[in-house]
């Protein structure tokens, strides 16, 4: 199939960006979206695809190309990771599009995720939220207690696992009209609050992580739920509810 692409081009953090039009041809339905961008870039490099303003190949983040590293991050036709539910951009395939279509491709837009170049943004704010408390304070040693010494009810273990599958991609922030990072932050808070290992630092963790989230410039949550709809790992809104309860509880205990 033949497609028209409208791609956000921006030289670096300080320059102004613009949408630039490219034509790609011979795209097959079995290609992944990123392989389609590879075709575009090869075309730009070889001169087969016209790149009037000489921007060169489109910069985009990607690595595993199987939906798990969380690196790929494109806003496609107004949706983070494009059409389809529970997929990352790298798992999106061209069979979802039709011949002659025009596709709009943009980077994540959020104050806390500044643009580095074209479609590449800086998401280190997420790392700093984890650094603020997204861990259990246990040192490495050869003599932690036996892994089976503490049985964990299967429901809790499974729910903790579901929350822990977040890939840190940032689609939730990109989807939210307030650029809130609640879904991401709550997934980690929920995982650790469901496990006995997370218990001792429960209050401090939620307070510190929420504080960091606010400092990074993410917006407030107004319960729209767009985050969970666009989340490639289908992280549930339940986690936000749980974090709110944890936060309330922590506030109560600390004011005691």
């Amino acid at each position, binding site marked *: 199939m033949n497609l028209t692409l409208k791609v956000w081009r921006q030289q670096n953090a300080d320059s102004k960006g613009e949408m630039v039009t490219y034509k790609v041809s011979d795209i097959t339905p079995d290609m992944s979206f990123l*392989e389609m961008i590879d075709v575009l870039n*090869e075309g730009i490099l070889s001169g087969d695809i016209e790149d009037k303003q000489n921007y060169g190949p489109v910069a985009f983040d990607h690595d595993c190309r199987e939906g798990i590293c969380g690196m790929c991050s494109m806003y496609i036709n107004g949706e983070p990771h494009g059409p389809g539910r529970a997929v990352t951009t790298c798992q999106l395939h061209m069979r979802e599009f039709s011949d002659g279509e025009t596709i709009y491709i943009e980077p994540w837009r959020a104050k806390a995720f500044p643009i580095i170049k074209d479609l590449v943004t800086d998401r280190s704010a997420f790392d700093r939220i984890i650094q603020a408390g997204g861990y259990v304070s246990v040192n490495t040693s050869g003599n932690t207690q036996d892994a089976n010494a503490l049985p964990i009810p299967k429901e809790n273990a499974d729910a903790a696992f579901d929350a*822990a599958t977040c890939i840190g991609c940032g689609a939730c922030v990109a989807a939210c009209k307030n650029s809130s990072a609640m879904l991401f932050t709550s997934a980690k808070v929920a995982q650790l609050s469901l496990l006995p290992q997370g218990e001792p630092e429960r209050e401090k963790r939620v307070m510190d992580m929420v504080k960091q989230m606010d400092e990074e410039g993410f917006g407030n949550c107004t319960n729209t739920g767009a985050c969970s709809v666009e989340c490639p790992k289908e992280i549930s809104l339940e986690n936000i509810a749980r974090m709110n309860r944890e936060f309330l509880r922590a506030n109560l205990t600390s004011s005691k």
Partner: protein
Amino acid sequence: MKLDSKIPEGPLDKKWTNHKSNIRLVNPANKRNIDVIVIGTGLAGASASASLAEMGYNVKAFCFQDSPRRAHSIAAQGGINAAKNYQNDGDSVYRLFYDTVKGGDYRSREANVYRLAEVSTNIIDQCVAQGVPFARDYGGLLDNRSFGGVQVSRTFYAKGQTGQQLLLGAYSALSRQISKGKVKLYNRHEMVEIVKVDGKARGIIAKNLVTGELERHGAHAVVLASGGYGNVFFLSTNAMGSNGSAAWKAHRQGALFSNPCFTQIHPTCIPVSGTYQSKLTLMSESLRNDGRIWVPKEKEDAEAIRQGKLKPTDLPEEKRDYYLERRYPAFGNLVPRDVASRAAKERCDAGYGVNKTGQAVYLDFASAIQRYGKEEAAVQGLKNPSAQEITDLGKKVVASKYGNLFQMYEKITGDNPYQTPMMIFPAVHYTMGGLWVDYNLMTSVPGLFATGESNFSDHGANRLGASALMQGLADGYFVLPYTIGDYLADDIRTGPISTDSKEFEDAENEIVERTQKLMNAKGKHSVDEYHKKLGLIMWNECGMSRNAEGLKKAMKEIQELRADFWENVKIPGNINEYNPELDKAGRVADFLELGELMCKDALEREESAGGHFREEHQTEEGEAKRDDENYAFVSCWNYKGNPSDAELIKEDLVFENIELKTRSYK
């Protein structure tokens, strides 16, 4: 160069304990004055950085991705081994050790593998303490599954995302140390050179990938945890950014490169679908617990399937050839990876392959769905369940075990594996070869260490499933943090390493020159074009089976391709900016050397062992034929300029506890 592997004296099961009590330590006050650089934040790197920082060292951690959590360990699916014997099925440290040495076709060091098996149990304890949500049974205890090449259930897992969960555990430990200021993180940074001062590794040159700037970083020791080099084949299950450059730079600085030709081709990957293909996707080995592998018995049926005239589900049982069950009744679908891969290739080469290309076999869950459905119906106390009810229940059980893998398969291929068998084919997956290290995980360059997939140490000629995660975490949590002290004990009075020295200056200048040369080529061909060409040569001549003639031809072709690359590669943009094409070019330049060394190693090794199958050395039934008399050694290559001039040094493998046998899975 004389090799000393520093294997401790004493009986096998006491070596590690004795060694730990005898090696030198650095006291806490002195640790504060010692800096360590760790390249990589995968399982091996993140665990090492976190543990070293907890002990008191000052750590600088580097990764080329935007976050340490994105290292390729994140993609590991199936599980991690540990000799916990929770299932009470006769597992033990010795058995895990034995399986690993046997699975590796007797080409690994006994002492290292035994230590790995020994610390495996601590890993699970440590991860659980960190809050890693492993799969549990209804009693709340940890669940296990089986992997290829073994007859016990010792694999711990978190659905099909075990690597993700383990890495997030290590990442959280790392994050904790970053927040304490004990680890300084350099993301979107690539190490481009190792700097030696007085023969010791004393720092690195790193490139800030966002600005293109070069930076100097000094340290008392450098640890590589940079992953494997499977991407030399272009198509592999590795991430796009995975590369061999860190290890290759080390090699160029005098670190010996061991067994480069030992590559693992994984039997269960989604087949190639077109020339635009950028990577291959693994379907976890855990699927072979329940999936049965087959091709049609008759060529006509295979032909009809390829032309789309016949559906696999229409083919009756008696017309299917479950070739692994037929050839290897004792292990069946769970034979080790190298054996399963070659068997698939054999069937496809003989004309029984499916898919349009004829380069695929089936992995079928129909029997598992029935079996689980019946079990579940019994558990639920259903009387006379209908066929539909059984199928539905069975699908549910299968979904709970492999749901995300089935989903992944469907997203890529558009086929629903609950209804029709998956199609799979072998693909490059893992590299057993890597930097030579001694028992302390130090390379032949003093002060330069290598851990995880970047070293050669534990898997011999073939790695068993679920053992790479185990090795990465063993190295990073439990081995390196102790053994590095033995080396650093000499450095307590050294003081900070200055980066103003001539050595740093020279290293930086050389990188500038090399980059300039790449940019000046101004040719016509993109970096990917060269990478794809190299990959094809490697896959055809140094892939699942190899022969002398092909390997010689490949070496010549790679030399020509390399020369052409430096003349004619086309790199857009500038040096001082975010320029992924330039970064890729640097990595491919190294692959173009490493590929040749792999072929040389494969040519030199006149035997078949594990993943290395030389057509000249096979039995009448087509099984690998090892030569223990002449090849029970680790090949260690010393850099001498061109890869074809590399000098071979041998580390003889001594087996005191295991009797060398022909590997049989029949």
